[in-house]
């Protein structure tokens, strides 16, 4: 069975908890290594490493850990908003609080935002990998080029550039109701944006653009 390492680098562990919800399904097809199971062993090779949480740029320990995971895994997935697009940690201030999406430190293969992604996401992602394709897999690959994505980018890159068609996918996707349609286009209530990136990866204009 293919092996999967699931590791949180310092997020809220919500992503791990959501993966644990799928454990009964996952264990039928994969060997899982998760701290919750008490079998975390970083000295072996993995077919997949699913990493959640941001990387602290002031912790050489975390940086080294991440690099080691990269070396030991065939496919590295940045899972959840913090690991993939920075998430709410990008707001943190102070000399000792420098966080980044993990793509800033190592090369990643797929980037899946979500805060936290619902349990079904990991299963469907692995299914897509197994079937080798699909547009959404390409999307998660294309997202690895971005170190940050949020409602701010949606406004800048889609709305202010005049590409928005007013479909409402972003407003319907936002978990905090930070986006509202005003005169048919989205407007961002900045204080409410947790930088989860869901709105922009659901925006048909953004995705058509990065997949063209």
């Amino acid at each position, binding site marked *: 069975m293919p092996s999967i390492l699931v590791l949180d680098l310092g997020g809220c562990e919500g992503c791990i908890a959501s993966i644990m919800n799928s454990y009964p399904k996952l264990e039928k097809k994969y060997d899982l290594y998760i701290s919750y199971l008490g079998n975390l062993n970083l000295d072996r090779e993995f077919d997949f490493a699913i990493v959640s949480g941001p990387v602290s740029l002031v912790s050489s320990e975390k940086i080294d850990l991440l690099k080691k995971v990269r070396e030991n895994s065939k496919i590295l997935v940045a899972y959840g908003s913090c690991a993939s697009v920075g998430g709410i940690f990008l707001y943190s201030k102070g000399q000792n609080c420098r966080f980044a999406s993990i793509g800033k430190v190592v090369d990643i293969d797929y980037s899946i935002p979500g805060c936290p992604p*619902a349990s079904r*996401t990991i299963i469907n992602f692995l299914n897509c990998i197994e079937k080798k394709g699909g547009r959404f897999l390409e999307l998660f690959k294309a997202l690895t080029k971005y170190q940050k994505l949020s409602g701010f980018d949606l406004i800048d890159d889609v709305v202010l550039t005049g590409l928005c068609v007013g479909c409402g996918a972003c407003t319907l996707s936002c978990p905090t109701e930070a986006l509202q349609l005003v005169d048919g286009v989205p407007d961002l209530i900045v204080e409410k944006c947790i930088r989860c990136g869901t709105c922009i990866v*659901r925006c048909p204009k953004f995705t*058509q653009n990065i997949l063209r």
Partner: protein
Amino acid sequence: MFHDVNLENPIGSVEGIYVAKPKKVENAGVVTSILLYMLENKKVDGVVTARKVKGILGKILLIKTRDELLNTVGNCWSVVPYTMKLKDMLTSSNLNKIAFVGLPCQAQFLRHMKTFPLVESDFANKIYVIISLFCMGTFITDGFVKLIREYKISPEDVKNIDIDKDYLVIIHSDGEIKVPVDIVLNHIQHGCLLCPDYTGVFADISAGRAITKKGTLLITRSKLGDNIIKKASEEGYIEVESASEDEITKLKEKALEKLKRAMDYTAKLL
């Protein structure tokens, strides 16, 4: 698996292509008939679709009964946005199997949400079936209304709109007018000019006007979509026949036209 458009195949993955006519309720339209079949046979407990409110403007509704459904009028030729209100309606209702009708861009978004719920507030498990209407693009409403007023047509009188090669055909209460596409292009949303998908490749069922004969063209893309069409026909809600080679060729031509337009404009605008 749902495949994206490309130059070899501009209509995406296909399970079956049919031409259908309404049967049970004569003046209902094929999509409405399919929805009616699903509601009356409890395949879904709700339908989210756009209703024309005024002129070319529409509103998204959550429909639960036959009467509500038959009172909604179809196409709006403007994107009818999914709003936060819709989310409130969906999350607060006890409806759990919903049919969504939208445009290709909305079908893509819904499929993404259904397959990859990225946040707990996603209502992925309520999306039962996704139906997409064919789309050549939508208008910047203010500009378009001004344009048709110049032709002495009031938006309230617009009955149907279709693109026929170099002309936009606007069918209104007193007849029809043809507006050269060059003029119309200025009033199509920029985002739509970049959109490559005519039929809605991420839907379970795509529907639009048939080209070679009277009727509605249906493309099914999943087993679920195909079963719905077959059952709706068995139960006498619609009359279905396989689309002719000629019809499919013409459909592909039209889809290719949109894809090429998207490629041209992508080179120009981005």
